[in-house]
């Protein structure tokens, strides 16, 4: 039984290491993705993205300026990484035809690490989140 608990804890801790260190941003991102999926007009989708990026930037400034605790440093790193992926994608130029191409930009701008096996190659969590945002942006785009 104790082994099972230990195993569960290990699995949980390993999955957490790939997730957001910041609950507030995690919730804001999920909220954005939901809204993007039901919004049709490009202009409205772009507004949602711009508001999210403003929030993200302000939060990044606050977190980075706060004490340099390990937790804050990790949050700052996550937020700045997400901010970078969203900057790489020029949302205003997205249309239904170039969506896949825009997703490639995120994939190719992630971290360049050489892994022991091909199966080790995982897209960083922040890149995965950014991809979800682009996919939601593209969904039903008019």
């Amino acid at each position, binding site marked *: 039984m104790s082994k099972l608990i230990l195993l569960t804890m290990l699995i949980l801790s390993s999955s957490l290491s790939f997730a957001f260190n910041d609950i507030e941003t995690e919730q804001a991102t999920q909220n954005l993705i939901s809204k993007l999926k039901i919004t049709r007009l490009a202009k409205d989708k772009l507004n949602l993205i711009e508001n999210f990026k403003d929030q993200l930037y302000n939060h990044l400034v606050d977190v980075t300026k706060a004490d340099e605790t390990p937790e804050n440093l990790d949050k*700052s790193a996550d937020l*700045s*990484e997400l901010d970078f992926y969203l900057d*790489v994608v020029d949302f205003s130029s997205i249309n239904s035809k170039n969506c896949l191409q825009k997703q490639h930009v995120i994939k190719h*701008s992630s*971290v*360049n690490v*050489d892994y022991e096996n*091909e199966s080790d*190659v995982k897209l960083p969590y922040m890149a995965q989140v950014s991809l979800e945002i682009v996919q939601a942006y593209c969904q039903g785009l008019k």
Partner: protein
Amino acid sequence: MIKKLCSHLFIILSAISFVSPVAFAAEMLNLVEPMQTGKQINPSIENSLNMVQRSQEILSLVDSNVTFSSFTTKDNSFNCESCNRSSQAVKFDSCNSKNNYLINNLDYLGTKGGLLSKLKNNLVAPNNIINPECIRTSMTTIFGSQSKNFKQCTSEGSLKTAATKVRPCVNESYFNLINNSFALASQCLKDYLNSDSEQASEDILAIYSLINIESGFHANAVSATGAGGIGQFTSGAIEDFNHNQLQKIKSFLSNSSNNNCQAINQEILNSKIPMNTSVSNSCERISLKKGNPLLNMIYTFGYFKQTRKILFKGVFENKRYAKNFSRLSNNDQEKLERALTIWAHNAGAAGVAAPMKSLLVGKYFNTPITDVDQFLSDLSKRMSQTPAQANRSIARRKETKEYYPKIKENLQRIQENTRGGTCLN
């Protein structure tokens, strides 16, 4: 038996007495990896021979200061008799059965009569943007002659199963192939890298400094995890090049008025995917028969261009950080972008941008960068404090933090020991 023992003892003693002052000189020059001093020598014959060989390499480097002077001419006529004579005067490695394994492949190139064969035989010797003396320094000092960071692919296949080898000996034809390939890639892609000629030369110097650390300009250098060739390409970086740069470079070269640049298209980039991403085909990253070292060099140039573009888009174009870059002169902005691009070769674009943005909203919040070197030094610390997720292991924090400073330091040392004090011709 006694004779054999005596000869072994003689070799060890001569190695100890010979190496110590040279090793000391080398460490003073700081050009090579730390060498063992006489006191600490492991009394194995192989080790002693290795030390003797490395010492000879360092001595030949000192010689090369003289012999390479004729290579640094800006004269375009490289097939002239005097150039060939001076090329013959250069001291090259004496090869042995352990390190001459690339010779056969070079001989194979010699029979094909194509671009690589011409480069090897000095029949195409483009104008060197980088001083050949610097290329030779890289080839002979970054890896020791007994270093095992090299592979030999007998047929196309995976680097994983390819035989591990010691550093290939740098003989005349191998040096010519490497030096002339880099000169040709630089000449053909200079304008592709940067429309400003002076800045383009600086970009090429940056690529030189990067290759210097990544592979020591050896076509068959391979990392423990399979990154391979001149630019130490990983699957991800190859995919990035194939997806974003291949067609652009092909198109650029096809418009070149230089026949040799067009020949790159026709002979090196002629297949649909010149370098495959899959590990099972990873020999393509190093194989001479596949067009290396020129192929891997073209990939390194293109990847440099692509990474710079991504960093520009992901950091410099964001108006929120505009104030940070507002006081940079054009020269300083170029210098900063170039440094970040070099860094991203190891850390990835996101691996540079994440700590950089964290620094811009922290210490540099609403503050213009006025000293690029200071900013890069601050960024080095940030690399380990706020790394991107994939760089968060202790080993990667250390590696990415030290990557650019190490490249800069190595370039500085090489240039200090080069005639004229610069590797740029």
